[in-house]
C-alpha cells in the first residue's frame, strides 16, 4: 500500500526550478533512498513534503490524504517525521528537555488544562519522562540526558534528532543525511537502528551521500538531478544506470 505519494511536485526559487514535476511513491515498510549530486533538490523535496516550503504545483498525498502545503506541525502530527541536514536541536536546552518538548505535543491536553489541572499534568509528565528515557536508551544517549544538546558531539546530535523524530509515533521518517560527517562506528549504529525499526514496520525515506549506507539498507533508490527524477529502482540497478553515472560525473 502506498504510504506517501507525490504527483508532479514543482518548486521554483526566483525562476530557478529546484524540484521539477517529481512523481514518487513510497510503500509501507520500505526503506527508500534519495540520492543525487549536490544541489539536485533533495532537501528541497523533503521540505515540500513536510510543509516547510510551499510547492508551486503538484500534490503530496499521505495515506491517500492530500497534505499539500499544510503547516509543518500538522504534517508532523499526521505521522511524517523528519530530521534536518545539520542535526538541528534546541541547543541551549538539555537532551531531556529536547525530548520533553517533542513528547508533550503528542499528549492530548488543552493549553488551559496545562495550567490548571495539576494532577493530570503530573501524570503526563511522568509518562513523558519514561518515554524519553526509553527512546534515549534506544539510541544510547540515556546517560547524557542532563547534558546540554549544544555540548553533544555531531554524531550524538544526529542520534538525538533521530530519537526526537521517533517521538510522534510516526508512520514515515524522513532522514536528511544521517551518516554525513559521522564516524564509522556511529554509522553502523545508525544503520542497525534503521533496520531494527524497519523490521517493526516503520517506513524510511533517506537522503544520503554515503553509497555504502544506501546499498546496504535501501530496498529502493530514487535519483534526482537538477530537480528531475532521472532513475528509480534497486540499489544495484541504479548504480549501473548510465544516466546516474553521467549525472554524478558531470558534477
Amino acid at each position: 500500500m502506498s504510504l506517501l505519494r507525490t504527483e508532479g511536485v514543482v518548486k521554483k526559487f526566483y525562476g530557478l526550478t529546484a524540484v521539477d514535476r517529481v512523481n514518487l511513491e513510497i510503500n509501507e515498510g520500505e526503506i527508500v533512498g534519495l540520492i543525487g549530486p549536490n544541489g539536485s533538490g533533495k532537501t528541497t523535496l523533503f521540505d515540500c513534503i513536510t510543509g516547510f516550503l510551499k510547492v508551486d504545483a503538484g500534490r503530496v498525498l499521505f495515506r491517500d490524504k492530500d497534505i499539500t502545503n499544510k503547516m509543518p506541525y500538522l504534517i508532523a502530527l499526521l505521522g511524517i517525521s523528519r530530521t534536518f541536514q545539520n542535526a538541528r536541536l534546541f541547543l541551549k536546552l538539555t537532551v531531556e528537555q529536547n525530548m520533553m518538548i517533542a513528547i508533550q505535543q503528542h499528549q492530548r491536553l488543552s493549553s488551559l488544562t496545562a495550567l490548571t489541572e495539576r494532577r493530570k499534568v503530573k501524570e503526563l509528565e511522568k509518562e513523558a519522562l519514561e518515554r524519553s528515557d526509553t527512546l534515549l536508551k534506544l539510541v544510547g544517549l540515556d546517560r547524557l540526558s542532563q547534558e546540554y544538546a549544544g555540548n553533544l558531539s555531531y554524531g550524538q546530535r544526529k542520534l538525538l534528532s533521530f530519537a526526537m523524530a521517533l517521538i510522534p509515533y510516526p508512520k514515515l521518517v524522513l532522514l536528511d543525511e544521517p551518516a554525513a560527517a559521522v564516524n564509522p562506528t556511529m554509522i553502523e549504529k545508525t544503520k542497525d537502528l534503521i533496520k531494527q525499526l524497519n523490521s517493526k514496520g516503520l517506513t524510511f525515506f533517506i537522503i544520503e551521500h554515503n553509497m555504502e549506507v544506501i546499498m546496504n539498507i535501501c530496498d529502493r533508490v530514487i535519483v534526482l538531478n537538477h530537480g528531475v527524477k532521472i532513475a528509480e529502482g534497486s540499489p544495484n540497478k541504479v548504480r549501473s544506470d548510465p544516466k546516474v553515472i553521467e549525472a554524478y560525473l558531470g558534477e
Partner: protein
Amino acid sequence: MVSSLQVKRIGGLMLYCIIVAGILIVPFLIQSPYILHILILAGIYLILAQSLNLMLGYVGFLSLAQTAFFGIGAYTSAILAVTYRQPFWIGLILAIILPSLIAAVVGIPFLRLSRHSFVISTLGFLLICWLVARNWVEVTRGPLGIPGIPSPTLNLFDLVEVSFSSRASYYILMMTSVLIITLFLIKLVNSRIGRAFIAIREDEALAQSVGINTLKYKLIAFSISAGIAGVAGSLFAHYITFLDPTIFEFYNLEHVLVITLVGGSGTIGGPILGSVIFTILPEVLRVAKEYRLIVYGIILLSTVLLMPEGVGGRFKTYMHKRRLKGVYAK
C-alpha cells in the same frame, strides 16, 4: 517523618513569605513620599518589562508594541473612569481584556511574518496608536490629555471602602499586582506552554517539525503579554491621574528595553534585577533626563555587545553549571 524535599519546600515557602512581608512592610518603615513614588514607578515598569520579557525572552520575538498595549490599557482605564464614571476594577479588567484582544487580532498577521518584519510591524503599530491618541480627540481629548483620573477605591459590599489615594496604599496595591503577575509568569513559563514558547525561541522550524503549532503559541504569548502591559497601563493612569499621548513616546519603550535587556531576558528574575538596578541608578547618577537617556543608550549598547544574556542570564548559566556538576558528582 519529614523528607529533605519537604524541608526544602517548607523552607522555600517561608523564604517566599518573608520576601512578601518584606516588600509589603516597606511603606510602614519608609515614610518618604519620594522613595515610595520611585518604588511605585519601578513597579509599573517592572510589569511592563515582564510583558516584553515574555515575548522577547521566552518566545524570542522582539515586540516594540508593548508600550502601545501599555498606552491602550491606560487609556481604557482612564476613559472608563473619567468619561463613564466606572469604578477602577472594571477599568482594570477591561485594560487587560482590550489589549489582549487587540494583540490577538493584530497578532494573526504580525506573527506570521519573519522576526524581522515582526519588529517593524510592531513599531508601526505603536506609532499608529500614538497617532490615534493625538487625533481621535472626541475620545482621547487629543494632546490636551485626560486630567483628573480618580484614585482607585475598593468597595466591599458597601461595608468597607478602601481608598488607594495615599502613596503608601498605592504602593501596597502596586506590589500586590507585581507579586500576582510574577507568580503567574513563573507558573506559565515553567508549564508545558512555557516549554513550547522556549522551543519556538530556540528554533521555530524545529519546533514545527516536532509538532508544535507555533502560531497558536505565539498568539497566546502575545495576548498574555499585551494583557500584562495593560495592567501596567491601568495602574499608571490611576497613579499619575493624568494621561496624554506622550505615553506612547519612545521614552517608555527605551526604558523598558534597557531594564529587560540589562537585567536579562529569558529569566523572570532578570527584569526584576533590571528594575532594581534602574531604580537605584538614576538616584545615584542624579542627572537630567537627556543625560540619562544617553547613559541608558550606552548601557544598552554595552549589554548587547558584551553580555547579551544580561546579568540575570549570566547568573542562571552559572547556577546550571553548578547543578550539572552536582549531577555528575553523584
